[in-house]
């Protein structure tokens, strides 16, 4: 993390604004960069992330597309292979399934199939997650599926620094990088250093240090997990909170160092429990830190149901701080 260690001037802004700054910065820095997606231009972005960029960079580089996810994602792949640095925006992770063929069968495989002759330096951004009462076709968290695929990298910026800093680093990557932005974070405000810039995209971060239990999470669940950690602290339990940041590759070293210290882990993942990223993280802990464990690994994931529309049911379907507190206490034998 290149989060300013020395206190510099900070600016209060939203996560949305941090993403926009990252886009603007990348467009300015590199002429090969362009943004392409549904309603990114005239509409200003479904989540208003690219609002104002069309006027600044014009329709060639802030390129509205028809509703052809596979077509324009594939176009992004081809443009990347031909020397451009496209940023493809898919409106939500649910819609990305219409482009899954291009992402999995082309973007992730070309380097390998071509014997390293061609690469796809493409960035695909998309919104993920529940919490806006958008029901069962707009609210899922499928980033764990993408993290299954060799050949791509998967990022989950949870903080303003990462929203601002991951994009440029991803654009420098010679391989496809998918960035998942949790919809509940766009309105989050915070302070960002005025000179905030690129950050690494392969390390997990310890967002709160603690000795009693490791709470491992990413994306939108980070803030609920930090809230849970504060609640636990009131009960004298010092939880360490790990923000994975990169879901593929996973930073095993940071995870194992934490679990080695606390000997307990609970994984918080907005994906469904079965076959989840949480399952992957948990299994790695078992493989690599089994002899350090003092309790069964816990998971707080989404319930096994399509995300429902009513607020109370939606809230109940996804991880929340009280569930995280309960899972942590169970792992500590204090349930």
């Amino acid at each position, binding site marked *: 993390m290149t989060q300013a260690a020395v206190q510099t001037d900070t600016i209060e802004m939203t996560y949305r604004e941090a993403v926009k700054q990252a886009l603007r910065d990348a467009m300015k820095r590199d002429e090969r960069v362009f943004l392409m997606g549904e309603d990114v231009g005239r509409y200003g972005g479904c989540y208003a992330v690219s609002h104002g960029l069309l006027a600044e960079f014009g329709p060639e580089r802030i390129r509205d597309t028809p509703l052809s996810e*596979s077509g324009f994602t594939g176009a992004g792949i081809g443009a990347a292979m031909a020397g451009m640095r496209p940023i493809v925006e898919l409106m939500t992770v649910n819609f990305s399934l219409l482009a899954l063929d291009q992402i999995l069968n082309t973007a992730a495989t070309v380097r390998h199939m071509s014997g390293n002759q061609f*690469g796809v330096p493409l960035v695909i951004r998309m919104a993920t997650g529940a919490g806006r009462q958008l029901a069962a076709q707009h609210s899922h968290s499928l980033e764990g599926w993408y993290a299954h695929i060799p050949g791509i990298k998967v990022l989950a910026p949870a903080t303003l620094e990462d929203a601002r800093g991951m994009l440029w680093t991803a654009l420098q990557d010679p391989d496809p990088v998918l960035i998942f932005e949790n919809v509940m974070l766009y309105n989050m405000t915070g302070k960002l250093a005025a000179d905030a810039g690129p950050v690494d995209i392969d390390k997990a971060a310890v967002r709160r240090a603690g000795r009693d239990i490791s709470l491992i999470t990413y994306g939108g669940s980070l803030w609920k997990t930090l809230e849970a950690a504060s609640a636990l602290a009131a009960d004298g339990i010092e939880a360490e909170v790990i923000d994975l940041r990169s879901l593929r590759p996973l930073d095993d070293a940071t995870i194992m160092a934490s679990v080695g210290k606390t000997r307990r882990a609970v994984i918080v993942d907005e994906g469904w429990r079965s076959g989840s990223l949480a399952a992957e993280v948990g299994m790695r802990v078992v493989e690599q830190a089994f002899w350090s464990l003092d309790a069964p690994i816990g998971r707080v994931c989404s319930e096994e149901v399509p995300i429902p529309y009513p607020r109370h049911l939606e809230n109940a379907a996804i991880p929340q701080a009280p569930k995280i507190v309960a899972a942590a206490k169970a792992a500590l034998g204090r349930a």
Partner: protein
Amino acid sequence: MTARADKPHLSREHMLELLRQMIRIRRFEDKCAELYTQEKIRGFLHLYDGEEAVAVGVIPVLEKRDRIVATYREHGHALVRGVPMKTVMAEMYGKQEGCSRGRGGSMHLFDAATNFYGGNAIVGGGLPLAVGLGLADHMQGHNLVIACFFGEGAVAEGEFHESLNLAALWGLPVLFVCENNFYAMGTALAISESETDIHRKAESYGVVSEAVDGMDVVAVEAAARRAVQAVRENRKPYFLECRTYRLRAHSMFDPQLYRDKAEVEARRKNEPIVRFQGWLQANQMIHPEDLSRIEAEIDAEIAEAVAFAETGTWEPVEQLTRFTYAESDASAIGKMP
């Protein structure tokens, strides 16, 4: 071979070269089929038997800097494009010396040196990629032509329509070449499309479109010259439907339950090599010794390619996970012509 006039120059030399390329593909693939039965080549093997006139008619019209996207039935395209036969054969074997290091096999021939963007084995999957190559050229201004080959089966895929729309909408220099062999594996065109006149679908997107007899290499070349010139000059897509016929099965393991032998035999009488060779002989543009010389040269080239593949090396298993991500010392990103 890269003459840019919109009319083929029907010199004897050029005619012999067209014939030679078609025979070269045919004999190479005959050898592949033989090697397949000997288990030297595995996986899927899709042969181009009967369709040679399309690749031979279109690809030599392109310039070296232009880019090509092909399908899983792409041996002919790779050979005509100039990917060395020995590296193609080594790829069929899965050897390290193959044009894709053996990682791709028959369906995934790639060659950066000739801007050959690969055999894509997802039907329709190559079209968006070609659109992207065209978009890059649109933004970079290199004035390239992107030739995208696909079969008529791809027409049923959403990606076909998305891609034609995007290319037309954004004015991208993509030459769509539909190799209509009338069967998507075993499904005849008439039972999968409401509109079987495929080039009309392209017209509906405002793309200039024509259909051509894909069994006539001269006709294909003539159409390709028109098309390539139009794309290069107008910076707009162009759609060429080449009506052809696959004489062999879809792949090696296909009993062809879906069509009559009589239909295949009838088509065989009109297949592009027989037809072109007959025409040349009738017009006394070819002598028997020309033919035997061509065949001898090709057989020697094939023998050399087989020997090369046979003596090729298997990639060490220790390297299994390579080429999933870029390696700092071996990155081949964004190769420019």
